[in-house]
């Protein structure tokens, strides 16, 4: 029989993580970090209180893309010098908060899973102070990637039209679904030539999911190929600051609107 003390040890999480979105891709290099930053920025611009969490423990680079030199980051939290809320950086230029990882720090990837889960739980507690929390997860499908996102209610899977991206995204969806059948999965296709091509790429993954997994993850949006994205990344400036009206910016803003509807629901 479970005692009250046992229940205290594993507290119920009820609504925790309702507004937490994990952003994953399976394959690396499909624009996950850029997407996370730009989506956080787009949501912040429409008046939402946003927190962007760098969950790419091995190769964190959210701060690099934004040209930040954070004084505090996740490694200080892991070492016990700071609590998670003390590691928050106010990124005033974008109007949202950030918890940075440490770029190139192998140490962060080497965390006890119990500790990782505590960080995930702390993040879920912090999420109460925000309208939405976006977690930029690392590439791959390892347990560390999934464990950090264990409180997220929604996982946004980003993919391109390359076959390797498709198969890796499928593998991620399959394992996420097997591990946590209750998680909502939504698909975003990135770097596609047109909306039609984006829809076609989505149809490919949808057919695989329906055929093999008997699930139909919805399409959250399509992001068209745009040379401005690369320019903005090279300038270490958010896309919405540098090229607020370009095609990719419009696409992300559309996704932000769609996503916000799901926060409310």
């Amino acid at each position: 029989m479970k005692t009250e003390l046992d229940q205290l040890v594993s507290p119920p999480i009820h609504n925790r993580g309702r507004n937490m979105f994990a952003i994953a891709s399976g394959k690396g290099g499909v624009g996950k970090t850029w997407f996370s930053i730009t989506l956080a920025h787009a949501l912040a611009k429409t008046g939402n209180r946003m927190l962007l969490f760098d969950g790419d423990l091995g190769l964190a680079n959210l701060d690099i893309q934004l040209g930040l030199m954070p004084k505090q980051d996740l490694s200080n939290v892991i070492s016990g010098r700071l609590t998670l809320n003390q590691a928050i950086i106010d990124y005033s230029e974008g109007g949202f908060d950030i918890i940075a990882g440490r770029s190139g720090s192998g140490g962060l990837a080497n965390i006890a899973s119990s500790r990782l889960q505590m960080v995930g739980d702390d993040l879920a507690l912090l999420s109460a102070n925000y309208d939405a929390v976006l977690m930029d997860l690392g590439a791959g499908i390892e347990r560390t990637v999934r464990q950090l996102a264990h409180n997220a209610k929604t996982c946004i899977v980003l993919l391109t039209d390359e076959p390797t991206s498709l198969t890796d995204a499928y593998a991620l969806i399959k394992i996420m679904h097997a591990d946590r059948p209750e998680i909502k999965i939504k698909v975003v296709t990135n770097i596609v030539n047109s909306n039609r091509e984006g829809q076609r790429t989505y149809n490919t993954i949808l057919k695989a999911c329906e055929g093999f997994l008997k699930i139909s993850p919805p399409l959250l949006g399509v992001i068209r190929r745009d040379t401005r994205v690369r320019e903005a990344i090279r300038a270490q400036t958010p896309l919405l600051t540098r090229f607020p009206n370009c095609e990719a910016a419009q696409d992300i803003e559309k996704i932000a609107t769609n996503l916000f509807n799901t926060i409310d629901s």
Partner: protein
Amino acid sequence: MRIKTYIATTNSEAIKLVCEDLGDNAIIISSGNTDDGNSVRIVAAVDLTSTSEIEITLEEEYEQVSNLSIEETVKQALVFHGVPPRLTKQLSNSAAKAGAQNPTLALAAAFETLFEFSILRTDIFKSPLMLVGPPGSGKTIVAAKLCNQAKLKNCTIKAISCDTQRVGGVEHFKALTNHLGINLITASKVDDLKSHINLNVTTQMQIIDTTATNPYNEFEMINLHQRIKASEAEPILVLAAGSDPMEVADITRLYRELGVKRFIATQMGMARRAGSILVAADSASLALCNVSISAKVTDGLKPISPISLARLIMPHTDNNKLNQQNTEAA
């Protein structure tokens, strides 16, 4: 999942190629004409690993012990709970030497070695119990919980309040004891307390609630000491979990000088870091008896053991999830 593109002159030819190559379980993901319009292009996929295989792999993953050593896993958890470096080192070293299979059991073994546990029973009391401690630690609620637990076991109870200096101190306890049908006795002076204790030697349980003391105030501590001596009661320190560990290290030593040997940790339900409890057990060598989770009297006090304390410190250790599943299945 394997994905492959097939180009043939007709649809049926392309599908034949898919079946030959990927087998009957393949699905067509997309089909259409090639760019020049002369041939048919079919993209097909097959998933070689079944969902049940994935589920087995995930189960195995949960069973795996983390790559990190037990010592490091324990250390990281203790750091999170704010345990000071010296005690962290001592506990993680001891856990590493325990030879246990998982970090929680190893930490439990370390607690067993280094700390003392002494469950407070509500049916056999050799001497009166006096609840002492700093302000706001929950002495009155603990007193009421003890009364309630003893009442459920049909013990004869005498409840005494020395909390006469604080406005509403006696009234607070009285409201709780009235509810339990116990007549509360007030003892503002040392002699009053002595006389009440001596009055009825046949009472099975005598519980004394005291005024909060500032352990750094010599006058208050002398007063408390006089009451402990007069009543010949066992002083039990009541400490709120989530207090600053270093502060707790200082104050527990001061209470130890008054003869305190055991403590009850309270407010466990609202503390996420339990470092102060470990520090209290360590710095003043106090034995941990029970814990109080909420301020609800009917919730009572819960016994705590090395293993339940270890699970409290490491709630997410790999095998806990598995153990929990096993327990639920059983």
